[in-house]
């Protein structure tokens, strides 16, 4: 390993902050990868509780069923790295105000579930923070077909995108594809923060 490069990256990531909207299949896995990578501050918003049916793809465990997701996720982050600052908001994002918790982060990750809410979130963020990088995702359901996924970059919007995927209510959500796309998002976040230090 290139020790000098690793140290430079560690310092830069420690000073960085990322906001994540949603702590489900995408969000929980994005957060864990960013925590392992060494992002210094994470702001996580979700309103749900952990259910048994989440465990096939979301970063939670059996003994966390019934817990508020953001609290369970904070617990899991702290098991990896105690020094990470984790701010959790156990609340539903309301269209028109969805940008509010993310005023103070470097990069925002859209990790929501329903297409309608995803679209409202992207509109709110691009409207209120046009200069802030936003990493979103569309088309996670199913398995296989990962070669259909690409990154669509439109200004500050980075979209991890499979335009031929089905809506999740007409398909299945499974760990391999959800985690691949979550980590694809996390990888873009690192690229945005680290920039020239590749």
């Amino acid at each position, binding site marked *: 390993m290139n020790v000098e490069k690793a140290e430079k990256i560690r310092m830069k990531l420690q000073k960085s902050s990322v906001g994540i909207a*949603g702590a489900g299949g995408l969000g929980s896995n994005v957060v864990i990868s960013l925590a392992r990578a060494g992002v210094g501050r994470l702001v996580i918003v979700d309103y749900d509780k952990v259910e048994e049916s989440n465990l096939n793809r979301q970063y939670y465990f059996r003994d966390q069923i019934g817990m508020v997701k953001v609290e369970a996720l904070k617990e899991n982050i702290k098991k990896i790295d105690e020094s990470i600052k984790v701010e959790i908001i156990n609340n539903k994002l309301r269209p028109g105000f969805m940008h509010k918790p993310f005023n103070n982060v470097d990069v925002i990750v859209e990790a929501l*579930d329903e297409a309608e809410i*995803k*679209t409202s979130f992207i*509109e709110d963020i691009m409207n209120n923070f046009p200069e802030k990088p936003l990493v979103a995702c569309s088309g996670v*359901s199913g398995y296989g077909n990962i070669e259909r996924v690409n990154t669509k970059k439109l200004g500050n919007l980075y979209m991890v995108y499979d335009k031929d995927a089905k809506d999740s209510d007409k398909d299945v959500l499974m760990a391999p594809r959800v985690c691949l796309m979550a980590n694809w998002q996390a990888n873009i976040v690192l690229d945005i923060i680290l920039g020239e230090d590749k």
Partner: protein
Amino acid sequence: MIEVNGNIVDFVENETVKDLLKRMKYTFPNVVVKINGKLVKRADFADTVIHNDSKVAVIHMISGG
């Protein structure tokens, strides 16, 4: 001429975003539209006219996360 998701299509006088989506047969209910890098909110689709030589990007949001 205008460009829609990288494809060159005819320019139509006074065409709105709503009209263009219909012409392109983009029937998805939830889309993110940018024209020349600027976001057009869904609420403004029916009132936003597309000018000649515009570059339009349409992203279809699919449920699942």
